[in-house]
Structures are given as C-alpha cells and as structure tokens.
C-alpha cells in the first residue's frame, strides 16, 4: 500500500487513453502510460508508430481526439507550444530550430529579449545574463558567438540548455544523437545525467537501440499507434525490443549473403580536392565496399566527387579499365555510376511530385528516344519497382512527401535501379529508417551484389558496416588511413584507423 502511494507521487506525466486520427489513418490508438519523475524514459518504435504524434500532442502542436494528459496528476489541456513551455515541457527537435545568423544569447532569449527603456533590445543585459547562464551550465562559449559558427552538437547543447533556462521539468529529445560524432554523444550523455540529477525528466526518442542501455531508465515500446509496453531498461534484450517494435521476430539483423566477387570495375587514383587528399581505391564486381570513418572524415566528399557533384582538383577515375571524365552527375550516370545521397530530402527526392515521377525522373531518356514521355513505360516500370522493393504507397500518383522515410529511401534506390547501375553508391542508406525497412534494404543490397552490381556503402553505423561489407576502407581527415577485409574487421581496428592523425 505504501509503496503504491510512493509510485503515484513519483509519476510526473501520464498519458491516458490518447487517440488521434488523421484523414485515412489512426495515428494513436488509446495510448496510456506514465513517466516517472527524474528518469530518462525512452520511446521506441518504427517510423509511423506514433511517437512523434504523441510528442506533438504533448507539445501542443496537435490536439488529441480523446484521452487525457496528466501533469503531476492534474489534467492539462495543452493549447500550443508556448503553453507547453509555460507548463514546463521543453522540446529539442531532431532538426534544430536555431537561427544561424543570430548569436548564442539571441537564440536563447529569442522572443523574450530583455528590453531597455526605449523598448529596444538591451544587448548588454542580454549578453551578461547569457554569459552567467552558460557558465552555470559549464559551457564556456562567448554569448555573442554566432550560432552558425558552432557544430551541430554544440548547437544542440544550446537548444537543450534553453529548455533548462525556461524551467522545463520535462525535456523531450527527438533523435538527439542522429547527427552527432562519438565524442559529442558522450558530451550529450553527460549533460543528460546532469539534468537528471537536478530533477529533470527526459523523454528520449531514438532509433539507436545500443544507446538506450547506457542512458535510459525506462523504455516504452509503441507499434502502429498503439502502446505495447513499458519496461525497465536492462530487463529486456535488444532482440526482444526489435521483435516487439516490428511485431515479428527478426533472427538476423544483417542478412548478409556473400556474392561472388569478380574483377575490379571502378578504380580511383589519387583523387584530391579541398576536402579529400590522395584518395585511391577500387571496387570489384559483386562486392559491397564499405567506407568507415567519423563524421567529417571525407567519406561523403569522396562519393560526391566520384558522382560529379563536387569538382576534382586532380586524380583519375577508371571504369572497367578505361579512363573516364566525370564533371556532372549526368557524366557519372552515363558511365553507370549512381548515388543515393545521405540527404534524401535534398538530393534524392522531389517531394512535391508523385512516386511515378520520382522513379522515372532519371530514366525518361531510357523510356523514350523522342522529346515525349513514354507514359506506358513510365507507369509499368514504376509499378515494377514498387513491387520489387515492396514500397508501401497508396498509388503511383501519391506525393512522395506523404510517405514514410523508409519508403522514400526505397524510391530513391528504385529510381536508379531502373538504370541498372554498375557501381551503386549508398551514402547512409539506413539513416532515420525504422528497423523493418532497414532489414529490407540490407536484403536488397545483397541481391544487387549477387546480380553483379558493385556497391559502395558509406555508413556511420559501424555494426551495420561490419555486418554488410566485404571490404572496408577507413578514412580520417580526408585521407584513406586503412583497408580491412570483412573477416578481419572489427570495431577496435576501424576506430584505430579512424582516429589516425587526430
């Protein structure tokens, strides 16, 4: 009896029967669970499981159709994000809401700047208050430093302490580690522990299950808009979490099937530009070649140069033994080199346009030699790709913006597949994608390799790279610092090469 009472008091936030529908989908279906004060509470689930919708309700951006949100045992109607802030709920979004041209101080106090007698911003007071606060938070930055001069990790830290400044008791962090380097992740975790000690409660959304053990106390699993269960971290294994998330068991995270590896197909010799130095590598037929390294090591830059998106200062590229010149993406595509960029919304998709048009975009010349669109080919090929990659979309005319991240990524992969690439560069192919879709993409990669395609895979997810690649190049500071065969590669060796020169 006593213990139960204690538990009741400990609960800071409770969702009770939350339901929310959008036209055609039930995003949340009777979700109920509670969060204890002073804990780090993880929220996991595939994309589309309803995590973001729930958090948007908590932040006042959406309103539930039915159900209650209880804060410290009292029901609250959260009107909008300002109201949420007043209630002590702070949010750190995955895509940071910082204004690069403004200083740290101006960003912290945005919209609440101290004013002088004339009603103008009192910069002196602004900077001195910010400075004191930054020191309090053990962040020795100058408050007048412009936000854009800071790294993503540092900007995120400012966003976090901003919520602290406004007395947030509950801080929601959406995929906070998705674009941080290893050392930045460490700093973030230190900060989270510190906040916890001060009594803050943290709701932590992440796709990186490895992190949860390290930083979280409780874990709530959601699937298809429904609450599955809440458990204490440590009382559940990673595989159990995954199978509850997807609602089925996945025996093997990496369905690697080794393909027959043939001759060298693409060879790069001493590629150099502003970002990369003397990069030489080769990739063979049927091989999955990995590029490992820390964020900023120059892996993406190598891919961009080979794909004609960035200029090369010097160096040569050979395709099947013949020297080729690549100045634009079109040159690369014409030579059978294609690339799926890490930033699929920027470089991969025209999100305003349909599934059909996005799949067809690079292929219109293949469909028809005249000036006109071959509507029949366009339709048939797109339908084929959707089937082959099991892309979930209502129909071919659906706007790609409305699809989930995993399906969007499959469309980007699919549009190149039509052109049957010889060398397929996949830059962070599974970033921000849920477990189920990841698995399918891995499987497809193996199938492509079996068909004789060469795949260059860039990934910051080291286990994924180790699980999938036949051979790995490790980069550091724009240079290739090591080459490892799949069998001999392990986390230690990769990290050793990745930190050379540092």
């Amino acid at each position: 009896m006593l213990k139960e009472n204690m538990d009741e008091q400990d609960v800071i936030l409770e969702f009770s029967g939350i339901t929310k529908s959008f036209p055609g989908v039930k995003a949340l279906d009777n979700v109920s669970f509670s969060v204890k004060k002073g804990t780090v509470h993880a929220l996991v689930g595939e994309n589309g499981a309803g995590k973001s919708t729930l958090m948007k309700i908590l932040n006042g951006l959406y309103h539930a159709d039915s159900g209650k949100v209880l804060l410290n045992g009292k029901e609250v109607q959260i009107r909008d994000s300002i109201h949420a802030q007043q209630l002590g709920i702070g949010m750190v979004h995955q895509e940071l809401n910082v204004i690069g041209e403004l200083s740290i101080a101006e960003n912290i106090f945005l919209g609440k700047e101290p004013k002088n007698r004339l009603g103008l911003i009192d910069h002196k007071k602004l900077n001195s208050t910010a400075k004191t606060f930054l020191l309090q938070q053990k962040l020795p930055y100058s408050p007048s430093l412009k936000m854009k001069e800071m790294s993503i990790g540092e900007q995120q830290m400012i966003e976090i302490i901003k919520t602290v400044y406004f007395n947030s008791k509950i801080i929601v962090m959406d995929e906070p580690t998705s674009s941080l380097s290893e050392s930045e992740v460490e700093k973030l975790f230190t900060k989270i522990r510190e906040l916890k000690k001060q009594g803050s409660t943290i709701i932590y959304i992440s796709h990186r299950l490895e992190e949860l053990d390290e930083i979280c106390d409780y874990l709530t699993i959601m699937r298809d808009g429904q609450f599955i269960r809440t458990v204490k971290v440590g009382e559940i294994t990673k595989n159990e979490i995954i199978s509850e998330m997807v609602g089925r068991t996945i025996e093997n995270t990496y369905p690697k099937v080794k393909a027959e590896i043939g001759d060298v197909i693409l060879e790069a010799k001493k590629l150099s530009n502003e970002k990369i130095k003397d990069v030489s590598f080769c990739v063979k037929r049927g091989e999955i070649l990995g590029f490992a390294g820390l964020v900023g090591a120059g892996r993406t830059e190598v891919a961009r140069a080979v794909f004609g998106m960035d200029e090369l200062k010097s160096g040569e590229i050979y395709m099947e033994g013949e020297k080729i010149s690549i100045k634009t993406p079109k040159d690369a595509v014409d030579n059978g080199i294609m690339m799926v960029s890490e930033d699929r919304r920027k470089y991969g998709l025209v999100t305003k346009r349909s599934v059909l048009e996005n799949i067809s975009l690079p292929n219109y010349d293949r469909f028809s030699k005249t000036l006109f669109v071959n509507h029949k080919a366009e339709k048939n090929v797109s339908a084929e790709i959707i089937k082959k990659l099991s892309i979930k979309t209502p129909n071919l005319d659906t706007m790609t913006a409305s699809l989930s991240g995993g399906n969007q990524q499959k469309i980007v992969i699919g549009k190149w597949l039509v052109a049957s690439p010889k060398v397929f560069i996949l830059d962070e192919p599974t970033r921000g994608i849920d477990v189920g879709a990841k698995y399918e993409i891995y499987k497809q990669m193996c199938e492509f390799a079996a068909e004789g395609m060469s795949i260059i895979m860039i990934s910051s997810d080291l286990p994924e790279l180790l699980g999938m690649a036949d051979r790995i190049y490790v980069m550091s500071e724009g240079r290739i610092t090591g080459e490892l065969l799949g069998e001999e590669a392990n986390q230690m060796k990769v990290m050793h090469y990745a930190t050379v020169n540092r």
Partner: protein
Amino acid sequence: MKIKMEKIKKIKAGTVFSKYAIYLVFLVMFIASIFMSDNFIKPSNLINILVQVSPILIIACGETMVIIAGMTDLAPGAVLALAGCVGIGVTIQTGNAFVGMVVSITIGIICGLISGIAVSRFNIPPFIATLAVMNIARGAAYVYTGGKTIYNIGDFAFFGQGTILGIRAPIVFMVLITVISYIILKHSKFGRYLYAVGGNEYAAVASGIKAKKIKLIAYLIIGAYSGFAGVILCSRINSGLPSTGQNYEFDAIIGAIIGGTSFTGGVGSMGGTVIGCLIIALLNNMMNLMNVQSYWQSIVKGIVIMLAVGIDMAKKKSKM
C-alpha cells in the same frame, strides 16, 4: 471498417472539390454575369472577351512553365511592345507581314535568351534579371519608334483583326499556343524536368537533369510567346505603340497563380492557367459593362487576387 470506408469517401469528395473549386468559381461568376448585364451573353461580347485575353493567356502559358520551374519573368509586357513595334516596322519596310511576324518572334526569343543566360549561367535571381530585361526592352521600343506611334501597319493587321476559318485570328492563335503548351507540360520530357527543377533543383541535378539547360529553354519559350503576343496585340490595336502591353506580365502571372500554379515552384497546370486568365478577363469585362471606373477596377482586381491565393493557402495549410 465501415467507418474507415466512409472516411475515405469523404476525403475523395473533398479533394475533388478543391481540385475543381477554381472551375466552380468560374462557372458561378459566368452565371452571375449573365444576370448582372444583358449585354454580357451576346456573342459579340463573348468573342470580345476572348480576343482581349488572348495576348495575356499566351504570355501566361509561358509564365506557367517559368513559375513551375521555380522562376518568374517580369519582361513579357515590355518584350511584347518591342517585338510588336519592330515587327510592324519590318513589315512596312519589306511589305511582307510574315517576315515581320518572324522578326517579332525572334526578338522575343533573343530577350528570353538574355534572361535565360543571366539566370542560368550567372545565377542572377530571376526577379532581378527579368526586371533588367523589362527595362531594356521597353527602352528599346521607345528608341526604335522614336517615341512615336507607327501607323499604317498594312498586312500585319491580319494577325489581330483577320479571321481563320471564320474564327477571329487571335482566338485561333491563343487556342493553338495553349494546346502546344499543354502538350509540352503534360507529355514532353522537358515538361517533367520543369516540375522537377522547380520542385527540387538539387535532386533534379543529382538525377542527371541539366537544370541550367531546362531553365534556359523555359525562358526561350516565354520569350517566343511574348514576341508572338506582341504581334497579336499591336496588330489588333492597328499600331506600333511603344507603351503598349504595360502590366500584361502581371495579369498573366495572376492568371497562372489563381489557376493553382505554386509560386514556390514544382506545381501547376495549363488547365488551371486557362481558367485563371478567363476569370481575370471575366472580371474586367463585367466591370466594364457595369461602368466601373478603371481606378476602381484595379482595386477590385487586387482584392480578388488576395482572396484567391489566400483561400488557396488556407486550404493547403488545413490539409497539412
């Protein structure tokens, strides 16, 4: 399950309504006009509306492509005047109206080439580049005519005043260009690339599309259309007037926007543009028939634009 089905049906009805809302607005306006003025429904008046809107709709066809590609063109009104005046001048010199027309269109294409190169090669923002071309073209029209109006246009009168198979020539040309533009946008590869470049230029380039070339061609097309609009308008008003065509580009842009073309690029259709331009033409005609002072006409037009686009934006927001 049953509830779900009903919901889906409702949504479909909703989207169909919003997709065709603009056609409904046009229909309502048309019927209202019949009751508001006895002269409206007379064939001569209806033909008059179409003749008057023809240069605007021709330019609007070009604007639709340029705007879909994420750009804009402010030069057409001035290019129209320059092309029309020079075309008439050449017709008088050579005695051949066909040569005059070809020269007009060529001048339009040259103006488009200047805008296109400025935008695609030198990365000058379209607003600025075409503003410059607008000033150059208007100035050149005055220089060419010495500030005077050229009369005695001879055979050149055919394009604006003649008939083809019993139909007024401007209407025939307007329909022809609208159909060509529809085919370009809907059925050509270039049309698909316009949408892609305007929707996301980075992704288009990374898909192997030559975005710069696409942008340049879009300007060449609107240049040619502007030149041809000049032929029709100057022929119809029976003179080479260097000050003519003022603000035609704005009416054309408004027509495209009312018709659902998104100013941020990547979205739009020729059908929408046709209806958008007809709505503007209808509005102008009604106000003329009801003897509304032209100063007031301008105010009313401004309000209509604000409402049309405002409602559209609100609709989009509620869909999010």
